[in-house]
């Protein structure tokens, strides 16, 4: 489905591994909490990349479109909760950033997008359907902001009922 798929990232059709990570210093978020609607997992290497080309700043502006599909966006990096909260406050982000900090990168590893040498995740996107299956995934070069067109295309597909293949009974 996707040309730039890294060899290891979980592919469409697989069940999205559940996880529980801190979203704030005193709150956890589990993937299973979000079941029943599409979820966009956006793994990114680190907080505080330059503003104008920043992927999280872009997605912050796309939230109304994601909401239109009933989809919840979640950012994940190996930064800690205090780093995330400072970053989210400074950039006025209106979606949760999860800290995949301890054990470091455990969730990124489960999704096949951990970069052991750097100690960060890949820049990787997963769109998960309401039943918890991966519907679409994409790994970008670390320095390239993938934009939102791939996510929106995947959400379009989820929103369109599959064409019947046989004769209706």
């Amino acid at each position, binding site marked *: 489905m996707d040309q730039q798929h890294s060899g290891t990232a979980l592919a469409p059709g697989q069940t999205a591994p559940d996880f529980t990570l801190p979203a704030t210093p005193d709150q956890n978020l589990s993937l299973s909490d979000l079941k029943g609607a599409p979820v966009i997992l956006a793994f990114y290497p680190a907080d505080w990349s330059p*503003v104008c080309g920043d992927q999280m700043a872009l997605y912050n502006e796309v939230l109304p479109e994601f909401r239109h599909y009933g989809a919840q966006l979640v950012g994940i990096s190996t930064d800690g909760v205090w780093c995330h909260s400072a970053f989210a406050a400074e950039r006025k982000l209106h979606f949760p950033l999860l800290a995949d900090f301890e054990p470091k990168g455990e969730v990124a590893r489960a999704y096949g997008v951990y970069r052991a040498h750097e100690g960060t995740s890949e820049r990787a996107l997963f769109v998960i359907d309401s039943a918890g299956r991966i519907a679409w995934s994409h790994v970008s070069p670390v320095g390239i902001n993938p934009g939102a067109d791939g996510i929106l295309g995947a959400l379009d597909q989820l929103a369109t009922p599959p064409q019947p293949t046989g004769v209706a009974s």
Partner: protein
Amino acid sequence: MSQLNPPVSADDHAAGPEDAPVTLVEYGDYECPYCGMAYPVLKALQEALGSRLRFVFRNFPLTEAHPHASRAAAFAEAAATIGRFWEAHDMLYEHQDALDDRSLLAYGHALGLDRAAVLAAFEGAYDEKIRRDFRGGLRSGVNGTPCLFINGRRYDGPVDLDTLVDSIQRLGDSYA
């Protein structure tokens, strides 16, 4: 994915002849410093290419990162209704350090745009149009600003006059 969608239409702000062989579309944010740096380059490009170039500007404001971007875009849209979009566009990029409401009202006054029209823009009169630009940008793969498309194809090269002229020249050769 790097194709411009929707294509340029009558809905767009365009400078230069409609049948120009080259159409350059910029997705921009009036408060983005990189767009500010691109502004004189694109001006010079327009001068260098003259009637061979049609330049189109579409809104792609990152409103949380740039608190004045949304109202600046709305102001330029209001100016478009009296046929002065490009003057507003230039004014904004030439005064990126003063994009607060009071400054925008003053620019409106200078352009002959009455206060009520600017205030209506602030209140959201053009939000739908701006959002439409933004959504089109998202679908075209715009991931930050400025983002340029030359004849509908994404341009990822450096934004300097020589490189842009070269790229456009090569495009022309491939048509010939």
